């Protein structure tokens, strides 16, 4: 079996005729078949082989991979099952969408495929991206890529496991409160949440519209830069997508940061109680690495961090309660057999919506409550106000530093069934990733070593809005320097 560290080594192998896109795809299909991770919900065998054949035809015609025009030619990617593909079942890991086949393709997926990417399958996740351990999937939990019995993180757990276990070359995830960065940290891969508005959300089944962002989950920072460069940029179908011209991320990422003039912020509020020693140690070592390179470490303060979890669990669930209302069994949502005895329309809805998993139900109920008349001002409006304060914190902090370095999550991956009984504990795990979503800022998790039980640990780097290029360059230098 071949094993490639990044896209360019795959392209080198294509160019040297060591392997064809079809052979590579077949190898991955075989690995997926043999794997016990439960990372894939749908494997697109025929479709992927067809794409691989056309990739091989292009390579044969051109003599080598046309990397500039088709930077992803023949690269097998996994797609989180929250992104639509025309004619391909899209479940969001929910029973309600078990039979949903969208008639259109998400902009991000469309752009990747246009650049030659092969979509090898749809990846498992927490139901409707709600969760941090991938134990909330209606299709069963996903296993950690290297540590059986442990969670891979979530909600993009299938993506993290598939990339970590090399079941595909890279994957797409989505990050609403840390759902890319946290599983990347748990699973020992690179995961980036771009600035809100960088990647079109068209075709991303919404959890919380003002927080959701699609991002790359890869084995290397360079691959993340390539994916982001291809799928990012203005999309007329998404009013919230940014109209600014996209930077050449793959070129910027390869540049060495200007270490002498670089200030790395260390927010004191991110060193909360409960940060495990192994996580704290690896992050401290990472800070020393930057210092050694010549960067200046700066203490910064993000005083409203403590409110971020509360704000998030009001804003996200409020938007979710509305976003998920279309799954009512009329046009979307499986109709259970019990519907035959539905007494009236209300009973009909009740029976259809009973199919949501407990976490999704909990969030719909919370969100409906937070928006209801008499409570809106106390909850939703207040949360929006505090959200602005959290953004303001970052604006102030970035006056004193260029980027922020912090842990991704207080601990390494935990064992399955360890925390699912305690939703509040689960929610608090997100305190270090949520602020970037609330503020729309870019963040990346890049491996920084191993902890107890040899479990992977990621370093989180955050930057100001639209500093995605600089963030990738810093992460790339860190990755290179550590190796």
């Amino acid at each position: 079996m071949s094993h490639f560290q990044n896209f360019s080594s795959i392209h080198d192998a294509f160019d040297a005729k060591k392997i064809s896109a079809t052979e590579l795809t077949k190898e991955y299909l075989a690995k997926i078949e043999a794997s016990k991770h439960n990372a894939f919900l749908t494997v697109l065998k025929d479709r992927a082989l067809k794409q691989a054949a056309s990739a091989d035809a292009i390579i044969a015609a051109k003599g080598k991979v046309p990397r500039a025009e088709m930077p992803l030619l023949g690269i097998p990617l996994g797609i989180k099952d929250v992104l639509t593909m025309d004619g391909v079942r899209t479940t969001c890991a929910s029973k309600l969408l078990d039979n949903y086949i969208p008639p259109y393709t998400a902009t991000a997926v469309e752009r990747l495929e246009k650049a030659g990417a092969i979509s090898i399958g749809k990846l498992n996740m927490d139901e409707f991206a709600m969760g941090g351990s991938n134990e909330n999937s209606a299709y069963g939990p996903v296993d950690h890529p290297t540590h059986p019995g442990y969670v891979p993180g979530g909600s993009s757990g299938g993506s993290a496991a598939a990339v970590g276990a090399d079941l595909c070359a890279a994957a797409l995830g989505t990050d609403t409160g840390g759902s890319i960065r946290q599983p990347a940290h748990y699973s020992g891969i690179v995961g980036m949440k771009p600035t809100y508005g960088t990647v079109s959300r068209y075709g991303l089944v919404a959890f919380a519209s003002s927080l959701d962002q699609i991002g790359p989950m890869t084995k290397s920072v360079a691959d993340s830069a390539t994916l982001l460069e291809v799928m990012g940029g203005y999309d007329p179908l998404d009013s919230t997508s940014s109209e600014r011209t996209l930077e050449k991320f793959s070129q910027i990422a390869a540049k060495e940061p200007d270490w002498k003039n670089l200030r790395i912020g260390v927010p004191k509020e991110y060193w909360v109680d409960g940060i495990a020693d192994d996580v704290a140690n690896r992050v401290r070592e990472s800070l020393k690495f930057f210092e050694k390179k010549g960067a200046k470490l700066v203490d910064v303060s993000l005083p409203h961090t403590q409110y971020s979890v509360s704000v998030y669990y009001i804003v996200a669930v409020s938007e979710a309660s509305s976003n998920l209302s279309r799954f009512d069994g009329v046009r979307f949502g499986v109709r259970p057999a019990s519907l035959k005895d539905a007494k009236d329309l209300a009973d009909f809805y009740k029976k259809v919506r009973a199919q949501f998993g407990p976490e999704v139900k909990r969030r719909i109920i919370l969100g409906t409550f937070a928006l209801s008349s008499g409570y809106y001002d106390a909850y939703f409006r207040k949360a929006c106000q505090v959200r602005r304060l959290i953004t303001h914190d970052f604006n102030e902090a970035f006056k004193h530093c260029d980027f922020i370095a912090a842990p991704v999550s207080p601990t390494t991956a935990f064992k399955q069934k360890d925390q699912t009984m305690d939703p509040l504990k689960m929610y608090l795990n997100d305190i270090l990733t949520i602020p970037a979503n609330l503020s729309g800022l870019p963040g990346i998790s890049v491996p920084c070593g191993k902890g107890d039980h040899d479990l992977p640990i990621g370093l989180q780097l955050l930057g100001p809005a639209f500093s995605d290029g600089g963030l990738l360059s810093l992460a790339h230098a860190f990755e290179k320097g550590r190796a």
Partner: protein
Amino acid sequence: MATWDPEFEVVIGLEIHAQLATETKIFCGCPAKAPEGKNVSEVDSNWNTCPVCAGHPGTLPKLNARVLEYATKAGLAMGCQIRENSVFSRKNYFYPDLPKGYQISQFDKPICENGTIEIDVGKDKKTVRVQRIHMEEDAGKNLHMDDFSLVNLNRACVPLIEIVSEPDMRSPEEAGAYMRAVHAIVTTIGVCDGNLQEGNFRCDANVSVMPKGSKTFGTRAEIKNVNSFRFVEKAIEYEISRQIALVKSGGKVVQETRLYDSAQNKTFSMRSKEEAHDYRYFPEPDLIPVKLDKNWIEKIRETLPELPAQKRARFVSELGLSAYDAGVVTSTGSLAKLLEDTLALTSKKGIDAKTAAKSATNLLTGEISRLSKEEEKDVSESKLTAVHLADLVHAITSSLVSSTGAKTALLAAWNGEGTIESIIEKHGLKQVSDTGALEAAIDAVIAENAGQFAEMKSGKDKLLGFFVGQTMKKTGGKANPGLLQELIKKRLS
């Protein structure tokens, strides 16, 4: 005039939904109207839907710029302030015809606020305040069969503006006049086709009663979805009598939504306030706030045509129309346009403006209004054009056709039978104004009725009508009646 117990006062406010006449829907590129030449009832269900307006998971709305333009135009025509920052919100409720489970509308920051509309109440004028105008998407339509229901999404995502009045109206007639005035404005400025039958212009009426002189309004009931000027007056009239009877018998009006059944001329309870929805409005995160530039708003203002009230006054002063006739011909944009286009053509034919206006208005307020009502068709949907009308006015004023002939010609033109010239020819509508031919016919009639002619000659004037009639009959109704009378009178001297 509706009447009720004089001890009570009535308070009415209207919420009017007008469909904007844009080519495409508000949040996607699907056609917003039936294809050219087709009626809404003739198109297939769901013919104009896409993943966005069908509410597919993952799709996002994209605002149609033309909707902003039309909503702004309507606001300016109604004297509203236009918000430079307005926000779309989600109105959440479950209903099978609502694809996303929420309607994208506007809540606390609507695009237009604080306008006024002047209405005629008898001989008086009254100003009704417009509280707000907001933009929103329409829902689909449920079709209930025996044991199942179907949903048609043709209307889903079609752009609407909701025009909300203050509770300023005090009688069913005022409400009707207000609804007509709003209809005249939106059709004149061209932002709505005004088709009531197809539901493109409909209203909800909030009605309450209170003891005369009271300072606080009574509890209101809302009558939903009335799509006719006549029915809105009738529904309110019924509702007033229902509420007064209720209050007088010691009962209390409950806040509720009611439906009007025109066949029974009654309103029925649909749902009470206890069952009312909590819509859980919140700002739509998929759309960025709408920011309008002052200069852009001013540019829209410059495109406003003459409004119905100004037009009406001008028709009275310049064309010598009666206030009533001027009111009818300015009641829709299409009627007024037809009249003005016609007058432009008749002036080229050298017909005096007032004469032409009088003649054309007679046709517009008479035969054309009748046909329009009968066939439930706006004049713009018929085959009748200003060229037809101008030619017909010319034929009438030059005595080429009689008034009966004119009616026949008009009906033929309405149905698309061709030019007025060819219609007159085809239907043989030309009046006989040839003196020789008429004299011959008179001779024949006199010969047949020698006795009566002698009586008339000896002073029995009443018989003149008889002779005119008989001669007319002989010419097959084509004789020019004025000329005929003149010629017969000459025989008496």
